[in-house]
């Protein structure tokens, strides 16, 4: 794998980030730098804060302490900084969250038209391009409920790509899928990674992590416990909690 990414300036950074839900300390002193083109896989037991972490990056969750920078924009409470970040960062959810009352094509054209002011004709052209890329263009006129879970998730990826983001966040994108559909979504993500997209993926798909990740990050109890390239991470995990977690998850795969 090429590591051209290493020489570039950070696309995204989190510095000393803390987050609480009431009294619950959800993120503890998170420091993370992601360079352009880097692929990060975040894993850890449920409740470890990995979803919360990526949801803070596009301001779906507010942080109480620390700094988040995306493409030179410091994320604060202002609508302007949130807009700027969301324009550059796409997100794919565990439960797809497609808009059920719109066709696949309309799902993909809405944001470019409303947020970027793209004309309908241009937005459709962009949408068709990305639907083609996730190999689902033939379903463009259907509604989400007419598609399988795997197809819906690929549409969700295309919908995010239509905003032409600089980075993509994946929040357990295959966890809600039937086993036979996991592969088609992972293949789409691998394709995206090959094309140089900056990606942060919360996932338990360790095969995917091995194949595309530049770094695997293990979280537990709201902290980053261990961080390493996949070969090192899987072969020589140093922290006992990482070892325990890997022992458990790999036993099932």
């Amino acid at each position, binding site marked *: 794998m090429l590591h051209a990414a290493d020489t570039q300036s950070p696309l995204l950074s989190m510095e000393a980030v803390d987050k609480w839900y009431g009294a619950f300390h959800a993120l503890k002193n998170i420091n993370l730098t992601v360079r352009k083109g880097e692929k990060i896989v975040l894993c850890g037991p449920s409740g470890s804060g990995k979803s919360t972490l990526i949801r803070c990056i*596009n*301001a*779906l969750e507010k942080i109480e302490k620390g700094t988040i920078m995306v493409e030179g924009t410091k994320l604060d409470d202002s609508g302007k900084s949130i*807009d700027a970040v*969301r*324009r550059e*960062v*796409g*997100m794919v*959810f565990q*439960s797809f*969250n*497609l*808009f*059920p*009352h719109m066709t696949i094509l309309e799902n993909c054209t*809405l*944001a470019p038209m*409303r*947020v970027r002011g793209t004309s309908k004709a241009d937005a459709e052209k962009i949408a068709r391009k990305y639907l083609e890329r996730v190999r689902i263009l033939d379903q463009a006129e259907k509604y989400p409920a007419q598609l399988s879970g795997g197809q819906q998730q690929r549409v*969700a990826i295309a*919908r*995010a790509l239509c*905003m032409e983001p600089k980075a993509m966040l994946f929040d357990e994108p295959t966890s809600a899928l039937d086993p036979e559909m996991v592969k088609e979504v992972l293949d789409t993500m691998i394709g995206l990674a090959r094309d140089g997209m900056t990606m942060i993926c919360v996932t338990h798909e360790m095969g995917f992590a091995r194949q595309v990740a530049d770094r695997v990050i293990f979280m537990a109890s709201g902290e980053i416990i261990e961080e390493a390239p996949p070969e090192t991470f899987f072969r020589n995990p140093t922290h006992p909690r990482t070892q325990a977690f890997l022992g458990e998850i790999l036993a099932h795969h």
Partner: protein
Amino acid sequence: MGVIGQSEMLFLLQGLKWTLLLSAIGFIGGGVFGLVIALARTSGRSALRKTAAGYISVFQGTPLLMQLFVVYYGIGLLGVSIEAWAAVAIAFTLHASAFLGEIWRGGIQAIPKGQTEAANALGLHYVSRMKDVVLPQAFKISLPATVGFLVQLIKGTSLAAIVGFIELARAGQIVSNQTYRPLLIFGIVGAIYFIICWPLSLYGARLENRMAKAAR
């Protein structure tokens, strides 16, 4: 006993015209303000939420008859002379907006949080998030209850008689007093209400059925 002739029937139809007009004004006015109430009720600002909740409580917690009374004489007390139909239209708009606002509030809150989050993640702002994503789904869910309220509203217009407004029920009363045939007249009046309201009720029930099936 008097005869029920063409002029009596015409008088009833005049009343029917006002009943339909009042219902339409109440429904349209109530729809517009009801949307404002529903949005305020689901707003991120607690002052707006509380104001809307108070407004809804007042209009759901008092009889429509009293609301008509208060608006009609209340505006008069302010020294503004107002025609009966205008006062009644205002009262019905206020009344309907509270009920529709609450119905649609429920619809908005029934939309999964993931929809708003996806819209947010795509960078959509409040107006587009509501107009394009949340409201179309919320209205669809709320349609049976909305139709049900419309039926209530049509029948409720009969209360406008209290401030001297001659709508269908009041017209029936007048004709009945002239002809001394209350049973026949109110039979006709009742049948007219039924012909309007029953198809709407049926339509509402069918919508509900279809949604229950789709949700299965």
